[in-house]
């Protein structure tokens, strides 16, 4: 099954390449005067087949363009059940449209699944519209050209609709997924073997500075890990950065307050904090209740944290992780107490508020980068590197693609489509 599909695919690719090289100029045929013709010649080269790459109950018809293709002439698609057609006139008209419509080039097929060249006509019959198509039943199908009272009907052809096991239109999506997966695995394994360079995130300097100032003032530090639970990458990053902050507060002997919205995150953060105090050589300073649970409800939590800010007046507030509408309520209250505020979030809808109300903000992926930078864990660093390669690839595609698309318009040629189709979202 698969091998056959692959062969089909390669054949199509070669075919498409050949067509493209010919330049697809075939459509510019001479127009004959439609009105002078008495009888319409039937449409030529009618082919019908099961619509490829779909869930069944659908047939596609293909036929050649004719000299009378214009808005005045109309095409009809005729259908009947069974292999033989006793009476052409008794076939059911399932579709009708002007003869200058429904070309293969207008369909969304990428070049590797196109069943015919661009200037051919095509029509896809589907279940529900104009009749029912049953999988596994043979149908006779044909095309008629109609102009006023003239009607030219082609010889019917047979086809059987059936469901398919692979959507070849989406093969570019699959290849991209595999390629990117490969890149991520490769960079993770590289990160395991050797150090990968990561640029320094400026926000991390600000972290140290803020803790230093809190120590000078003798005030505590407030650290929030966001609204999501431990399954969210932003929370994981927030927990990693908490480790770094806790190490500093231990060294400076500053108080640390970490109010939580999720009990599991709290448990994880307690472990991290304890470890940090141990590493800083001050295990006796570690307090179990520096991490504490408030409530999982958005606004109750916000009101409670605002209360802490107003009463304990922390010298530095850290907002890491995912946030929603509460972001502004938190940072505005924090700013009113005069604290240094540092944020890091991937919640892009809240970024404007963090950027305007905080002294420093880790924007989007900078949060992950900061945590990878601090943890030096190969999986994290490798993923970051893999994403960088992915972005570089996309940048390349954007550049090359734009040049090719422009060339395509300037030289009026079709071959750039060979490249562009690969990065199209086709169904």
């Amino acid at each position, binding site marked *: 099954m698969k091998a056959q599909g692959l062969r089909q695919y390669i054949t199509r690719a070669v075919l498409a390449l050949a067509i493209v090289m010919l330049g697809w100029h075939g459509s510019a045929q001479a127009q004959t005067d439609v009105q002078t013709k008495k009888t319409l010649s039937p449409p030529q080269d009618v082919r019908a087949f099961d619509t490829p790459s779909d869930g069944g109950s659908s047939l596609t018809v293909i036929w050649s363009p004719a000299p009378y293709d214009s808005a005045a002439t109309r095409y009809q698609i005729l259908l009947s059940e069974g292999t033989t057609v006793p009476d052409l006139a008794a076939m059911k008209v399932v579709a009708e449209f002007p003869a200058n419509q429904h070309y293969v080039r207008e369909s969304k097929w990428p070049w590797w699944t196109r069943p015919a060249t661009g200037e051919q006509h095509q029509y896809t019959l589907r279940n529900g519209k104009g009749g029912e198509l049953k999988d596994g039943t043979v149908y006779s199908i044909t095309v008629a050209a109609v102009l006023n009272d003239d009607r030219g009907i082609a010889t019917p052809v047979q086809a059987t609709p059936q469901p398919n096991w692979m959507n070849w239109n989406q093969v570019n999506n699959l290849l991209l997924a595999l390629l990117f997966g490969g890149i991520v695995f490769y960079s993770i394994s590289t990160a395991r073997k050797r150090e990968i360079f990561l640029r320094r995130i400026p926000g991390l300097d600000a972290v140290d500075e803020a803790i230093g100032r809190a120590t000078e003032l003798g005030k505590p530090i407030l650290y929030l890990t966001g609204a999501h639970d431990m399954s969210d990458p932003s929370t994981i990053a927030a927990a990693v950065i908490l480790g770094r902050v806790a190490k500093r507060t231990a060294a400076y002997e500053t108080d640390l307050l970490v109010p939580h919205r999720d009990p599991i995150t709290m448990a994880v953060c307690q472990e991290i904090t304890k470890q940090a105090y141990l590493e800083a050589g001050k295990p006796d300073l570690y307090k179990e209740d520096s991490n504490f649970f408030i409530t999982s409800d958005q606004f109750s939590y916000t009101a409670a944290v605002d209360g802490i800010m107003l009463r304990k007046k922390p010298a530095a507030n850290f907002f890491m992780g995912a946030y929603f*509408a509460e972001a502004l309520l938190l940072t505005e209250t924090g700013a*009113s107490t005069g604290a240094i505020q540092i944020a890091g979030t991937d919640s892009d*809808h809240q970024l404007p508020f963090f950027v305007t109300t905080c002294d420093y903000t880790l924007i989007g992926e900078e949060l992950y980068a900061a945590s990878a930078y601090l943890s030096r864990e190969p999986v994290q660093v490798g993923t970051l590197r893999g994403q960088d390669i992915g972005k570089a690839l996309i940048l390349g595609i954007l550049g090359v693609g734009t040049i090719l698309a422009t060339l395509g318009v300037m030289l009026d040629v079709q071959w750039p489509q060979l490249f562009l189709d690969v990065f199209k979202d086709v*169904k």
Partner: protein
Amino acid sequence: MSFAERMLKIDRRIIFLVIGLCTLFPLLYPVGLPIKISPEVRGVYDYIESLPEGSVFLLSLDFDPASKPELYPQSISLLRHAFRKNLRVIAMTLWVSGTGMADQVITQVAREMGKESGKDYVFLGWSPGGSAVIINMGQDLYGAFPADYNGKPTKGLPVLQGITNLRDVNYAVSLGAGNPGVEAWYVFGKDKYKFELGGGCTGVMAPGLYPLLRSGQINGLIGGLRGAAEYETLIGQKGRAIAGMDAQSATHLAIIVLVIMCNLFYFSLRKQAKQQGHSGA
């Protein structure tokens, strides 16, 4: 402390008061400034306008009471438009806490336009699972919603005649206040089942949806109260949104004035500091 410094450290409750008054007065004494129609909103309007009678229009009210002021007027206008065009309306919500409100808005508009539940429209209610509901509806509408909000079995309802899944929907609009919302309807719905999709959203979400609008993933976008006001203008029925636009104008202007003031104070302070720095040196 100089005047500028004092002004910069002004008690924020004074600002709160200014904003409160700027909202209140235009609401009490409206002016009625004209509203320009943007192409985004027109996209949704024109598409509904182009639909023939009896087309299937799906409206997903994916918001909760917190976004009521913005999205409620949008849903009223859209429903009025759809009913006026005699479309078959399927309404639903992906947000549990929005169920009551969604039911209220559709019943109210239907009553006003003389439409009958089950015949001209159906309110499916809420089903858990977020985007999974969309996938499920794409396969089998009756599986995702065996009964409508009032408990009537959905199979056999006249309004749903000939509809088996999302493929049979002509136009869907999601009025979303977050996730699941417009994006989920695109990724799990339109992308696969190929109905046309429009979006309505709160002002917070709107800027983030522009890439989808540009690439044609949604064919129109009604953004916030302004979008609702534009739609009310388009269908020629004034409602809460148009009434709110004056207050909106006043508060925006107030904030802009505040921003300008704060920058003036800030620069005068900086100038002072510079001069002092010079004289000190």
